[in-house]
């Protein structure tokens, strides 16, 4: 009896110090609850109550604001534009990213390091600086691309590159390229080369092996990348604003404008809710599509 009691008393401390319990995570969990969960709840709530200057006027729960937004043609047009810009840039990013990731997986030493530097350094650079870079390249008469084309004699007049869908697409694609490359890189680098040997042995060419074995096997990673790039593109408001010009808007841009410029917080909240939920739905669809294409992967789970 006496032998039991001391064991019981010290085990609690030991658990804490050995980190077996939940205690070390508690500060972070509480922090996130207070500064993430509650604010998110507030955001959602603001769409469904009447507010005046940030204070709730009356606690009535109303669906009117949501209804107004869903009936607004503009909202649907913006959503459509947000969707296809995000979808297109995801696909473009995939086609540009895959060869880089494959190259990385096939190289050693210096080349690998170079690829990593090229991929990671933009990642660590501010989104604003990267968007500004495209402003410099594509911008009006003084834009670098135009200057180069004119001096090479390819065109006489400067092309209107900025403030177009293409500018936004190009900017989005390039800026999100590292997000697609990194997951693909990891998967391709760790793949089972014996499967490719087997394919060669069975008569396929290296190119045939690439399309019959390497690419299908990487489908889960491809769709994970697509989902990620879609999500960040869909919710990106910096690139469309800077490269698309004042008249250009996507749903994300609208959320920003309503909240900060127009100061219509109710509308901002409602649009943000719509933005988040539709983004979530699209991402789920992409992931589901990926799972369907890679049904063979379930067997392993």
């Amino acid at each position, binding site marked *: 009896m006496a032998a039991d009691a001391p064991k019981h008393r010290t085990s609690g401390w030991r658990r804490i*110090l*050995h980190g*077996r*319990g*939940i*205690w070390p*995570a508690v*500060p*972070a969990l509480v*922090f*996130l609850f207070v*500064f*993430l969960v*509650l*604010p*998110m709840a*507030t*955001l959602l709530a603001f769409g469904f109550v009447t507010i005046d*200057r*940030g*204070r*709730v006027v009356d606690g009535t729960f109303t669906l009117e604001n949501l209804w107004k937004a869903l009936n607004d043609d503009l909202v649907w047009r913006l959503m459509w534009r947000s969707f296809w810009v995000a979808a297109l840039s995801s696909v473009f990013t995939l086609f*540009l*990213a895959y060869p*880089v990731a494959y*190259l990385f997986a096939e190289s050693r030493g210096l080349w690998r390091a170079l690829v*990593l*530097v090229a991929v*990671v*350094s*933009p990642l*660590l*650079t*501010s989104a*604003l*600086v*990267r968007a*500004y*870079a495209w402003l*410099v*390249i594509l*911008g009006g008469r*003084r*834009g*670098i691309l135009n*200057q*180069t084309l004119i001096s090479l004699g390819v065109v006489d007049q400067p092309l209107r590159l900025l403030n177009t869908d293409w500018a936004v697409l190009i900017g989005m694609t*390039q800026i999100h*390229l590292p997000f697609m490359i990194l997951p693909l890189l*990891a998967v391709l680098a760790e793949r089972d080369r014996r499967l490719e040997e087997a394919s060669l042995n069975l008569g396929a*060419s*290296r190119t045939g092996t*690439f399309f019959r074995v390497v690419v299908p096997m990487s489908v889960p990673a491809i769709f994970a990348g697509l989902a990620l790039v879609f999500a960040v593109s869909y*919710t990106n*408001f*910096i690139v469309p604003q800077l490269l698309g010009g004042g008249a250009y808007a996507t749903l*994300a841009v609208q959320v920003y404008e309503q*909240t900060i410029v127009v100061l219509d917080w109710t509308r901002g909240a409602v649009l943000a809710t719509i933005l*988040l939920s539709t*983004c979530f739905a699209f991402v789920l669809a992409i992931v589901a599509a990926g799972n369907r294409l890679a049904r063979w992967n379930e067997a392993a789970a």
Partner: protein
Amino acid sequence: MIRRAAPIDVLGGAVLALVAGFSLILLVAPSLIVIAVSFEPRAFISFPPSGFSLRWYESVFANRQLTDSIQVSFYVSLAVTGAGLLLGVPAAFASVRGTFPGKAASNAFLLAPQMMPGMVIGIASLFFGAYFAFRASDAMLILALTVFCLPFAIRISMARLAGLDPRLDEASANLGAGPAETFARVTLPQLGPALVAAAAFTFIEAFDNVTVALFTSDVRARPLPVELYYLVQYDSTPAIAAVSALEIGLSFLIMIVIARTVGLERLGR
């Protein structure tokens, strides 16, 4: 022993190399162009630059608004890094070594902010603060950025922690060290590089951030990216290129730190 390569393979290889080369150039060219443009002596953007001049860099440091915003960014980022490590590293411990009911849910929740666009975190924080009659301020910015950056600190710490051999802890205990001493002598030193990498990454993410900062920063004390956001709308001189080049330089330094501690490949996992 020379092998003749099949034509289809040569074609395939060429296409692959071309696209990969194009993508790699596409990745770095914009930043390099901005850096080049920042040395342009004249008052407009030109590439290649017509000369070499540091006047725009001088103008940056002479610009009170810009230097103030750089200071704000530094101080805010340091605070976020501190908070991120203090909250995140212990959380990583629980996530890797903990054995408690609901561990999976806890882990998922800790990494949840990654799923949120910065804009949403920013607006949510703004609204939440407004509800309690708090306006956008440095404090709100720091808190919101900490939420945004916490998953980065946690993930980097977790990755390293998971790779440590628990038997080393057992050996330490067997040799007589108590749990606190084992932590200090065995666990922490091994964790060192990861902590540095986590700090570096958290710092740069907080420093660079626009999406959260636009909503939660005080108008009178804007961090650098926000300042640039407004500047870009009306300034067409290479001054912005100069500030951008400085920022690119900072991120390059951070990249070296991460490469030397945990390696750049870690960022893909």
